[in-house]
């Protein structure tokens, strides 16, 4: 670059950034020189700290600078930065702008904890590795816009972007590589490096809410163990429970070992009792005992009850939360009752009419209720269940019965008392994977 081409900014307008609303990559700024107001070279930029409590476009709040003199890492507030460009970063002051290193609770160091690390893309529900960060310069601020997870990012980091672009433009001007960037907007990015926990917790709550539990389980499986622990500990209890239900037994064991017994107990309480029993039966004995001891006694009792039945039996698969109606209710009262119970019950397809002593009188579907005359009593529209189960019935037999009678759920009885209900989704899982 010759002297004639170089752009000189008059000192007086230094506070205004040279360009408005332009994008720049993190890799273009890292390692570039930092120059003081008097033109003295102070060091090199090694990191940018962003305010992660901002959901959409977090603002860069400070820089980390490695000093030329003693190779120390110092902090420079963004307020002291006059211009941040690929060529150099100019400050509004000299050496006195270099402050001791510190990290505020809401700050996340981009080069240290995001660049080259794994993140979760919560929109596509995928684990990705960050090749670069796409920053937006506007109104004197620098904000994180996207993370680059594409091949172009890799090529840019290698310093081959212009060479590869020129070559490809000559050979295949329409190449997908030239037209497509693989960016993930920051609002869909869940960083995983261990940072300030408060920020991560908020991020996890907001971002992971969009991810389906099955996808979340898959993400947890794809992650390295350390990131997996970070993400799982950050998940709100309900998400953790959902993800856990969908995970493989080996992963379940590992995940529950990552959290305190009290939190593990909270997570298990959040699950359906049959899924909780299933999960606990896969764990080592001591761990199961520890979690059960930390659970609410009534919840623990239900799960323990289920655990007394053998694996792959109706007793183990059954749900103890189901829709109960009493025979004297009218259809209208029954519907209101269903509405009240639905919060606690996962499947509302079938209603079970029981006496006070838990004896099963009959069943009716929600459809029956909706179509019935509101004044008709329940025991007039219910019918006898074709295939009530013994708690010891094997899963394969349960599947046969469900298929034969086209049933959605099957009651489990002992000595005429209704213990719980097995639904086909549980049976399906058992027959496929059991």
């Amino acid at each position, binding site marked *: 670059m010759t002297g004639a081409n170089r752009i000189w900014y008059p000192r007086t307008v230094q506070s205004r950034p040279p360009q408005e609303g332009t994008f720049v990559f993190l890799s273009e700024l890292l390692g570039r020189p930092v120059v003081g107001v008097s033109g003295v070279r102070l060091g090199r930029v090694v990191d940018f700290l962003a305010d992660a409590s901002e959901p959409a476009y977090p603002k860069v709040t400070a820089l980390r600078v490695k000093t030329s003199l003693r190779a120390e890492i110092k902090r420079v507030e963004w307020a002291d930065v006059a211009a941040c460009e690929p060529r150099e970063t100019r400050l509004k002051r000299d050496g006195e702008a270099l402050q001791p290193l510190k990290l505020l609770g809401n700050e996340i160091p981009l080069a240290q904890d995001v660049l*080259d*690390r*794994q993140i979760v893309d919560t929109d596509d529900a995928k684990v*990705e*590795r*960050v*090749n670069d960060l796409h920053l937006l310069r506007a109104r004197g601020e620098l904000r994180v816009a996207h993370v680059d*997870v594409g091949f172009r990012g*890799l090529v840019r*980091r*290698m*310093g081959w972007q212009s060479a590869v672009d020129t070559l490809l433009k000559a050979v295949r001007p329409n190449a997908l590589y030239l037209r497509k960037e693989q960016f993930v907007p920051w609002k869909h990015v869940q960083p995983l490096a261990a940072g300030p926990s408060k920020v991560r917790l908020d991020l996890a709550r907001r971002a992971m809410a969009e991810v389906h539990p099955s996808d979340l389980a898959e993400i947890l499986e794809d992650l*390295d*163990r*350390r990131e*997996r622990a970070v993400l799982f500990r950050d998940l709100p209890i309900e998400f953790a429970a959902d993800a856990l239900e969908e995970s493989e037994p*080996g992963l379940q064991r*590992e995940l529950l*070992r990552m959290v305190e017994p009290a939190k593990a107990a909270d997570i298990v309480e959040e699950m359906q009792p049959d899924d909780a029993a299933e999960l*606990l*039966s896969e764990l080592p*004995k001591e761990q*199961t*005992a520890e979690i*059960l*001891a930390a659970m609410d*006694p009534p919840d*623990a009792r239900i799960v*323990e009850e289920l*655990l*007394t039945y053998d694996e792959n039996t109706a007793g183990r698969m059954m749900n103890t939360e189901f829709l109960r109606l009493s025979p004297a209710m009218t259809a209208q009262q029954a519907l209101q009752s269903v509405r009240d119970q639905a919060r606690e019950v996962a499947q509302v397809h079938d209603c079970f009419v029981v006496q006070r002593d838990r004896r099963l009188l009959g069943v009716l579907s929600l459809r029956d209720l909706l179509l019935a005359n509101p004044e008709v009593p329940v025991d007039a529209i219910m019918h006898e269940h074709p295939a009530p189960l013994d708690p010891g019935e094997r899963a394969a037999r349960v599947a046969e019965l469900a298929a034969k009678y086209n049933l959605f759920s099957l009651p489990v009885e002992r000595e005429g008392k209704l213990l719980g209900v097995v639904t086909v989704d549980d049976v399906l899982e058992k027959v496929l994977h059991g």
Partner: protein
Amino acid sequence: MADQAVTTTGRLKPVTASRWARFAAVMAVIGPGIITANVDNDAGGIATYSQAGADFGYSLLWTLIPITLALILVQEMTARMGVVTGKGLSDLIRERFGVKATFYVLLALLVANLGNTMAEFIGVAESLEIFGISRWVSVPCVAVIVWVLVVKGTARIVERIFLIACVFYVAYVVAGFLARPDWHEVALGSFKPTLALNGPALTMVVTLVGTTIAPWMQFYLQSAIVEKGVQIEDYSLSRLDVVVGCIVTDVVAFFIVLACGATIFKAGGHIESAKDAAVALRPLAGSWASALFAFGLFNASLFAASILPLSTTYYVCEAFGWESGIDKRREEAPQFYFLYTAMIVVGAGLVLIPGLPLLKILLLSQTANGVLLPFILIFMLLLAGDERLMGRYRNGLVLSAIAWLTTIALIVLTALMLWFTLR
């Protein structure tokens, strides 16, 4: 409440199988160390050990002891990093040293491992030729078997098969006994360090070290341990796995040197490859020893040919954030399947091209191994000593000092090897 919980759960799982449970717990950790160390005795390794025995008799047996110690030192560090961080080595290098370092390291690894894979297919071809099977049949068949085994099999089955393959190395121990060595001389050679200070002897020692401690092993072992999900509580078992693996490997190496030392060296013969050794053993130690030797070579080559392409593909994909894993569908992980298939097709295909300078290519891969090793070791030491990463499991002062000294020694020896081979 707590009591009740304990009794209830106690009733759940009858205590009939506590011994089995313990066995299962051991099996959940054991494997990576033993498998890695055994794969190390691949076609190239067997050739080197055979040559050491054929050219120098028992006189270099003692070098296997320090080599084993160095191997244990390096592998233990790798295993510990895998258990503590739960990440593969290529991931750690990427996160700590950035894209550029990772790219060049993995490029060198890819070249070296492609060369090593070729060496394995050459081993397959040569060993089966002893049994009268043409390489035009054996190499394509084995390539297909390897590809199918890994793509269609599950990780658990594949590991079982690999563990069984480890057992077949006993062929070399038997061959060693069949060669009827003079045990007094063997003991002398094993415990009395002697070294003729001339070019060939030094080259041999350096080559022995170079074959035993290879860059790919560190990547493979660490990934295998991460894949197994070994937890820090079980680390002592994992370390045992590594130590036993290293010792078993070098015992096998010992018997290969022994078998060739007792026969080919005594008869004043010279060999160039592992196949030569198997052929030379026939008149000297009987056809059983020769057949066992050839079988061992086939087993080792097949074993290593199954592991090298797959593991290489894993590190590359992980470091660059591409989807990887045999549980992924082909559309989900295109880079993974492409790279894996390419490694096998190119590795096996080059072996079949008539007139290709195979020996030169193998030398080149050996060179790539050698150039790469110092970088890998230095990266490993920096990572294993990093408090942020390893916490209280980082290398202590004493271990650090020993590890750095060993590393420097290994680097010097590797540099010497390169100098000797390229001269």
